[in-house]
Every structure is written in structure tokens, then in C-alpha cells.
């Protein structure tokens, strides 16, 4: 009897377990589940053509070349205006300053002195005005106009109105606008209403906002330049009936950022002794060696040095 007390329940247990495990084995045989041949070994498209280096890697513009200033005009001085809340940093302009120094000339920073304007401006051969946010007074405008009429050279680098986010915990956005339109209007040009962009990979420098521009005439500013690249370019609006001439034009397919209008956008405009560039980044340390920017900067400096302001 004792044997039956153990054997019978054991038999029941074994039968139940065998039936269950047997059923599982049968099911496992019927359905191999997730085991099987390697998943997708022979499937096309797992190294897709659009992912290959040839399809995505792009040649970035080499940052080479040299700012080469060739003038035999004796020692000359250029003033960079800092008196109108100009958006510039001296360290970022050092490559240009160094090149000017190497060629035996001088760059000075300071605000325009208008009290005795003719004398004070006359000591400089060229004046570089970079993105001023405050406007020029009527006296200053008169002085600059007299200055250029008497042979002095002025280059104005302007940027289109754009939002600037302040750093810090409260990130407020303010609109920053070029402040010297009343000055440049005397030369028939002002900064256009919108920033430009170009989505075509062949017409930008690795970003839609970093557009290309190329010479539209053969003047001294364009010598040796095929393409310049501009990081925050606007365009120059030129008034009718003026002597202002376009020297660089944005690449084909360039559009305005807000309204997406295509067109022929003047980037660099010259009116006799005044040059207007609708961008102020091309001259800075990080951009100056991109594309042919260094050649254009050289040309621009030579343009300023070739000024002949009477003392």
C-alpha cells in the first residue's frame, strides 16, 4: 500500500508533465519561432545608396590662401569706425589687421571726429564702417560725403535686420538693424529688407544661410575672385538714377528668407569712392579664408589704401 501512495501520484505527475512538455515540443517543432536563418542577410538596401560617402560627403571649401596687399603707395592709414555701436570685435579682424601691417600700412580704431571733420578725416586714406547700429548725424554724413568727394575711400559693411537672442537665463529676442541707411542713401544704396538664403548645395557653403556670390563686373574689387561666401548676407537695394554699380551678385537661385522671392540680388555695390557690402562676416577670422574671401578682402583693402584724401 505504501508503494501505491507514492507511485500513483508520481505517475499522475509524470503523465501531466510529459503531456505538457510533449505538447510544447510538438508546438516548438511546428513553429520554429524566432530561430531560423539569419535575418535579412540577403536583403538589399541595408547599406542604402543614399548613405554612401559619395552621396553625402561634400567638399568643404578649403581654408587656404593669403590676404595679399600689393600697393606701392607709401604708408597709408585706414580708420575702422567704432563710434556708432559697431558690431565688430578686434580679435576677429586680426587676420586683416596683420595683412595691412605686413604691407607697411596701419589700421586704427576710433570714432569719427566731426568737430573739425575735414581735418580729422583727411588724415586717413580709407574708412571702414562695419555694421553700425546707431545712425550718423547730419554733420557726420556731410563730412563723409565731402571726404569721398575729395578722394577718400569708404567701405560700409551692412547686415540685414535680424533677430538676436541674448544669452542668459532670460533668452530675449531683439531685432538688430543696420543704422547707417541715411548715410549710404546719399550714395544711392541701402541694405535690403530681408536676409538671403540658398538651399542648393552647390550654391551655398554648407548651410542655406551661407550663400555664394560672384563678380558681375571686372573692376578692381573683383580681380582674382571667382566666388565669395557670406554668412549673414542681405542684398543691396539700389535707387534708380544713380551711379552705383553692382560688382558682386548672389548666386542663381538665391532667395529672400521671409518671402522666398528669387531674383538677382546685388551683394557688393560701388559708387565711385564708396563700396557697400551687404554682409559683415566675410572679413572675420572664421570666414576670411573661405572660398575666395581672402582675395576679395585684399581687393577691398587695396581699394581703401588707394584713396587719396587731401589733408
Amino acid at each position, binding site marked *: 500500500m505504501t508503494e501505491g501512495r507514492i507511485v500513483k501520484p508520481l505517475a*499522475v505527475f509524470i503523465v501531466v508533465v510529459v503531456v505538457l512538455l510533449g505538447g*510544447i515540443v510538438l508546438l516548438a517543432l511546428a513553429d520554429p519561432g*524566432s530561430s531560423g536563418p539569419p*535575418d535579412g542577410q540577403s536583403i538589399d538596401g541595408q547599406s542604402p545608396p543614399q548613405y554612401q560617402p559619395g552621396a*553625402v560627403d561634400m567638399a568643404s571649401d578649403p581654408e587656404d590662401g593669403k590676404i595679399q596687399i600689393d600697393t606701392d603707395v607709401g604708408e597709408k592709414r585706414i580708420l575702422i569706425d567704432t563710434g556708432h555701436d559697431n558690431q565688430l570685435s578686434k580679435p576677429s579682424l586680426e587676420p586683416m589687421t596683420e595683412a595691412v601691417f605686413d604691407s607697411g600700412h596701419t589700421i586704427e580704431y576710433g570714432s569719427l571726429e566731426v568737430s573739425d571733420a575735414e581735418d580729422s578725416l583727411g588724415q586717413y586714406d580709407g574708412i571702414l564702417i562695419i555694421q553700425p547700429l546707431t545712425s550718423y548725424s547730419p554733420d557726420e554724413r556731410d563730412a563723409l560725403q565731402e571726404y569721398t568727394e575729395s578722394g577718400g575711400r569708404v567701405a560700409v559693411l551692412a547686415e540685414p535686420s535680424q533677430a538676436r537672442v541674448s544669452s542668459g537665463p532670460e533668452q530675449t529676442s531683439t531685432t538688430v538693424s543696420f543704422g547707417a541707411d541715411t548715410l549710404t542713401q546719399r550714395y544711392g544704396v541701402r541694405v535690403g529688407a530681408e536676409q538671403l538664403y540658398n538651399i542648393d548645395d552647390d550654391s551655398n557653403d554648407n548651410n542655406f544661410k551661407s550663400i555664394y556670390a560672384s563678380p558681375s563686373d571686372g573692376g578692381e574689387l573683383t580681380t582674382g575672385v571667382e566666388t565669395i561666401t557670406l554668412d549673414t548676407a542681405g542684398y543691396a537695394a539700389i535707387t534708380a538714377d544713380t551711379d552705383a554699380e553692382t560688382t558682386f551678385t548672389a548666386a542663381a537661385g538665391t532667395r529672400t528668407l521671409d518671402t522666398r522671392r528669387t531674383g538677382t540680388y546685388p551683394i557688393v555695390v560701388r559708387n565711385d569712392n564708396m563700396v557697400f557690402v551687404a554682409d559683415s562676416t566675410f572679413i572675420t577670422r*572664421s570666414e576670411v579664408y573661405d572660398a575666395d574671401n581672402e582675395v576679395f578682402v585684399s581687393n577691398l583693402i587695396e581699394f581703401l589704401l588707394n584713396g587719396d584724401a587731401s589733408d
Partner: protein
Amino acid sequence: MLGTNKQFSAMTASYVIAITVALVIAVIFAPVVWNGVPSGGDDDPSVAVVDFRGGTTDANVNGIKQDLREIRANDSIDAVVLRIDSSGGPVDSSEELYLAVNRTTEEMPVVAYVEGTAASGGYYGIAPADEIVVKPSSNVGSIGVIVQAPLRLIEQAGQQSEAFVRSGPDKAQISKDGLREDIEVLQRSFVGTVMQHRSDELSVTRAEVANGDTYLGTQAVQNGFADRIGDSELAIERAAALADSIEGDQYDVVYLGGGAAAFNAIIVPAGATTVQGENNVTYLVHPEDETTFREPVKYYAVWGVPTEDNNATVIRND
């Protein structure tokens, strides 16, 4: 008499124990048996409906990759409907999603049903689908990449470079040009993917795709970002119709849970740790009282705005 009763009780107890143990074993193996039985329980082929809801984060994408792998291994499943509501996430995991869906489309028809949004990384994932079904309120597109790189990091590159002794000039450096080049590479592979799979349907140019606009369902059907207006049942019908081995309505529908967790916050500060609460997830950014390192930049294929100011130390998404 008493001895017989005792014996009977002992026997009963033995049987109870034996059957209990057998049942315990049965319970242990029940899920295996259950999972082993082909879904639907008959011989009809099946259309699997798999959900992807939430950001294309590592965790979510790994979940759906597992689902799709099981679907491909399951001989009874002949078509897939990918029911998606995702506004994207990091580029790396969005590419994983694309590759997993692309692999599945090589084996069986995949129809995407855009429940809410399939934008940016979400659209990346469904680009290879054989058909894309949308509602008027579905939101698709936003082809493009952003990078979350605090400007101060770029501006302070010079300072950063003096903080360590470095092995080379590019080590631990971030530059604006470098970021732009990287973004351009990721953008090209993203736009290239959309053009590779949808160029026959798209009425917009590659450049317009690269603009990164989003489109509502009706616009998407017109410009080729999607194929038809409908609901998830229509998507299932279309998937069945595209499968050669399914005839008429002779098919079953299997709903898979979907590995995507319902994370609302996609953009999480790099280096943050997560704390799972009962109804929320809290991301903690540790104070920098010791030298900790985090990814300096992260590339996102995302349609959205940061949920919170990243300067905050604690970000909650409850």
C-alpha cells in the same frame, strides 16, 4: 476504519500536490505555449499592426525594431501596418528606425498610417513604406536636422581648449563650420533617403523637400509626401491588398503592443539621468561639482521646440 480514512487523506494530498506541481509547471510554460501558437489560431495569413508612438528615441526605436524582427521571423505574417505618431528625435536612432522599416519592406508590404504626426525623424522612419495613409489632420514632413549646441560652447572654444591638456588641435573642439558640415552630411542622407523612396510620388523638388516644411494630410497627398486619405482600417486593407499571398479578405489582423513608450519630452539635456515616477519622468542634470562629461552636441531630426529652458536643472514632463 480510521486507518483507511487516514490513508485516503494522504492519497488525496499526494494527488493534490502532484496536480499542483503540474499546474505550476503548466503556468510557467503557458506563455511559451501561447506565444508558440500562430496568432489568429487558423491558417489564414495575417496583417500585423504595430504601433510607434512617441519620439524616435533609442528606447522607442529599439522596441519597434524588436517587433519588426519578430514580424519578419513569423511566417504567418505577410504584411505590416505601421501606426505612427512621432515628431522625431535624435538623428542616430531615427536612422535606426528607417533601416528597420526599410528591411521589413524588402520582405513584405509595409503601409504607414499616420495617426497624428510623422514629422522629421518620424517621417524618416516611414519614408520606405509602400504606402502612406494620412488623415486631414496628420502632420508630415519637416525634413531636416537641427543641432543643440549652446552658442557659448562655440564662443568659449578657446577657453575650453585651455581647460585640458589635449592630444591634438581638433580634440575637444567645436566650431561653427564643423557643426555646419556635420549638419549638412546628416541633412543630405536624410533628404537623399526621402528622394530615394518617394521621388516618384513627390511633386516637389529636392530643394523644396530640403526646406523642411511640414504639411497637413490633404496637402501631403497632393504633393506626394503621402499617398491617400484614410483611417487605420483602410491602411490594413491596403497592406493586405499589396501582399501577394493574401487573397481578398482571407486574412487575420494581429495587433502588436508596440515598444514605444509614451514619452512626451523628446529633447532631454545631454547627460541628464531619468527618474521614473508614478505618472511622470523627471530628468535630473547633476550639478557640475565634479568633472563630468557629456556629449557636447546632439543632432536631432525633430519637429518641435524644446520643452523647457535647458538652463534649468530639473525638467519634468508630467
